């Protein structure tokens, strides 16, 4: 599986905010149909990596190859048209717009037919029945877990091949976080969706992921299968012991 050319290949990627270098030459491969977890402490550069894939901030050096094509210089708003979707950190749903409008915003990007939209919407509702219940409600009145479901649902509305999730379990009760992770697993198994998930909750993320990368200070320090990384003593010491729910 890993022998074929990856869906997303990141090669020697560097990015900076002003003079502060956040990514110092990152290499990551994401194969089609995989869930890849990116774990690391606060400020390691995980979110920056995710945002650099979307061109904000722009890469200073290195390449981002998507389906073999270099997308490093593609404008931010066009990345979404390549069927890469993002659920950004902190959910960032549109609070004064209804759940329906939030979902519609995700679908507006694509040149999909009404029938396709309908079926995507049905799929999102099957995954997150709560959203169907709350359809007419304003986004801002949802609970944290529902907002996270909405953020993922909104990203799914663009019918992505690659889904980037930034801290989907942030601030959620363990039970709700599990629901979110279950939904991601379902999406991967049933729909063949490729997922890159950035998480501080290393235990959950590595159990979910096929493969994982550990990031420290803007560099990838460890890579391996999820199960493998979970067994590594340094991972256990740094991210798991005491941090378990």
């Amino acid at each position, binding site marked *: 599986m890993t022998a074929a050319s990856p869906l997303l290949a990141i090669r020697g990627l560097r990015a900076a905010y002003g003079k502060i270098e956040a990514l110092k030459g990152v290499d990551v491969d994401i194969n089609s149909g995989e869930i890849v977890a990116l774990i690391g402490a606060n400020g390691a550069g995980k979110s920056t990596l995710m945002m650099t894939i*979307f061109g*904000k901030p722009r890469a200073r050096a290195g390449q981002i190859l998507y389906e073999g094509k270099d997308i490093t210089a593609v*404008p*931010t*708003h*066009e*990345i*979404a*048209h390549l069927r890469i979707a*993002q659920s*950004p950190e902190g959910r*960032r*749903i*549109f*609070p*004064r*717009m*209804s759940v*329906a*409008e939030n*979902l*519609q*915003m*995700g679908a*507006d*990007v694509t040149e999909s037919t009404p029938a396709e939209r309908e079926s995507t919407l049905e799929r999102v509702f099957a995954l997150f*029945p*709560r959203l*169907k*219940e709350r*359809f*007419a409600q304003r986004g801002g009145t949802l609970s944290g877990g529902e907002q996270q479901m909405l953020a993922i649902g*909104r*990203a799914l509305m*663009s019918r992505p091949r690659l889904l980037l999730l930034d801290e989907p379990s942030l601030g959620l009760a363990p039970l709700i976080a599990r629901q979110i992770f279950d939904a991601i697993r379902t999406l991967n198994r049933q729909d063949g969706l490729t997922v890159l998930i950035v998480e501080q909750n290393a235990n959950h993320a590595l159990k979910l992921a096929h493969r994982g990368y550990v990031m420290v200070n803007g560099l990838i320090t460890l890579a391996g299968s999820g199960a493998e990384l979970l067994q590594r003593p340094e991972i256990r010491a740094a991210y798991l012991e005491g941090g378990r729910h």
Partner: protein
Amino acid sequence: MTAPSTHTTKPATSVPALLKTAVINAVIALVLFSLMVGVRTEAGSDGQLTYWTRFGELAYLVAAVFGGSIVIELLRQWIGPAGTEKLVPPAVQKGMSLVGRYLAPALLIFTLLVPVIFYDQRYILDLAILVLTYVMLGWGLNVVVGLAGLLDLGYVAFYAVGAYSYALLATNFGWSFWICLPLAGILAAFWGVLLGFPVLRLRGDYLAIVTLAFGEIIRLVLINWQDLTGGPNGVSGIPRPTLFGIPLDRSDDGLAAKLGIEFSPTHRIVFLFYLILALALLTNWVTIRLRRLPIGRAWEALREDEVACRALGINTTTTKLTAFATGAMFGGFAGAFFATRQGFISPESFTFQESALVLAIVVLGGMGSQLGVALAALAMIGGFELFRGLETYRMLVFGWAMVLIMIWRPRGLVGHRAPTVYLKKAQAISSDLVKEGHG
């Protein structure tokens, strides 16, 4: 939940706080009024300064402020900041929602009939035209401020561009109103884009300052570019609009003569009324249509969260520029109408005060609400005229009304935002889902 504790603690803590506020207000009043009221100065018969004190009046004023601030504070605590539903019984709410549903159509029908009902009252017709002009300006600015969330303090600039476009094209080239109207809109939209580019990266306060400056720049250019704009003297002799080439005057080609009816100057006023009504309704219709299209949704999403917009593949640059251009275009239309109605324009009509007034209409009406903006324009412009008899007190009443609206309805008269996307087969889905969700 926390009701018992607040009930027991509230009066205990609020009485000293109440007195403190009142004393502070009284002291401020004392400082302010001691020179304004307490000491009266006048030039004496020989030119020397005479003065005398009026401590009695001063004492009355300070006492009034002291008592007044207690009353206001009590009122505020009793009524509370809006949003809490407790004071409005469900029956009243039901009635209000019923009123809300029929208010807009009823208002529209009434507006259509205004020239019929008040045909003989020139003053009311003129006032109605003025109100409708501000309704249109409010709806235009609503696109920028209410939908896209870009605080624009220089909206009057586009009004001015529209007015001068028509005035100059008509007086210099003799073009008709109906050719100049779209041109005025296009030119204003062009200036909207021109303003949009430098402010693409700005938001909130910074955006407000730059747009404020833009409004002033346009006004100063109009004053100083004497060769083109006539400077402070303005442009006069602007042609009146025609009904597709038929003038509304006393001449033999005039509409009255053609229809074989007796000429009356009111014909032109009625025509102007329906013209601005049509323009305002066009603004409203376009806005409502755009809100349901991806571009309108993108405007609203931009107001909510710019980062999320980019992640969803929205081109924030074009989204902002189209919002500026659309809003400016309607401002330009309104400006062209203003020029043809007045027959004379000068930079004096396009001061910051106009921008502030239109912005106040949008904010008071409830940002993004079309009906709210119309009601606010009616209240602000019409109400302002209503209190004309009170002379010096009308600004006071006006200010009071604004403060009260913001206390009671902080989100504006119509704070409710109607969603634009509905679920098909809503009934069937919601009923079986409610069970599923709660089970």
